[in-house]
């Protein structure tokens, strides 16, 4: 069993680094952000397609005709 007084690492520098990254990305131009969004969409494309496929399969299996 873990001691209630266990020492955990200080992650405030990691959190501060992440916040700085968010601020940096927020400060990009709209055009630069659009390019990022295009890339994100392409990257998750296969996941979205798989989700759509599962959704269609589920609907098909629920329909009265099978």
């Amino acid at each position, binding site marked *: 069993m873990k001691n209630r007084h266990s020492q955990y690492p200080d992650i405030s520098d990691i959190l501060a680094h992440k916040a700085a990254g*968010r601020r940096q*990305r*927020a400060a990009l131009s709209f055009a630069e952000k659009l390019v990022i969004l*295009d890339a994100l969409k392409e990257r998750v494309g296969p996941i979205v397609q798989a989700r759509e496929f599962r959704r269609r399969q589920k609907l098909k299996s629920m329909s009265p005709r099978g």
Partner: protein
Amino acid sequence: MSLRKTIEVVTKLAEQGAIQRYAIAGAVAALNYIEPTLTEDLDILVSVAHFERRQSGLILLTPIEKALANMGYTERSDVGYMIEGWPVQFLPVASALDEEALEKATELDVDLAGNPPLKARCLRAEHIVAIAVQLGRLKDLARVQAFLDQDVLDLIAVEDILERHALLEAWRSFCTKAGIENPLAAS
């Protein structure tokens, strides 16, 4: 596939008169103010004055469909019209808040390097936040949190909008859910 081109097509619809007043809304509008987050579609808020309205209240977006077809965009998906690889949803103004947001939308430089430079209308940060509070889904509240974290809001303007549209209670509920002190109280 390019969101820039998608927005360019929307501006062409406005030039041709297929849509009158419009503004980029939703996650892509938020992009103008905060860090990029994934979205699957582009929301365009449009005025409904010149659209045919059925007795049932249904609004027909036929002029948009026709203009898109003339430009070669005939594909539709569950989430909207497919334009340059992005589903686009045209959302007719559905509340006084939407109407005000559309009225006060700002002109955005999408791409100044283009020839001619591409400009489009986009909702203001304070209206995006008010609409998100009104919708109240978890993803909307997360967006409000991002706007607050990234300190891009005029809090006095936010309070004014929320008050005029009877959304202060919904705002306080958001603060409770987010576990934050009400930042408007300090403004």
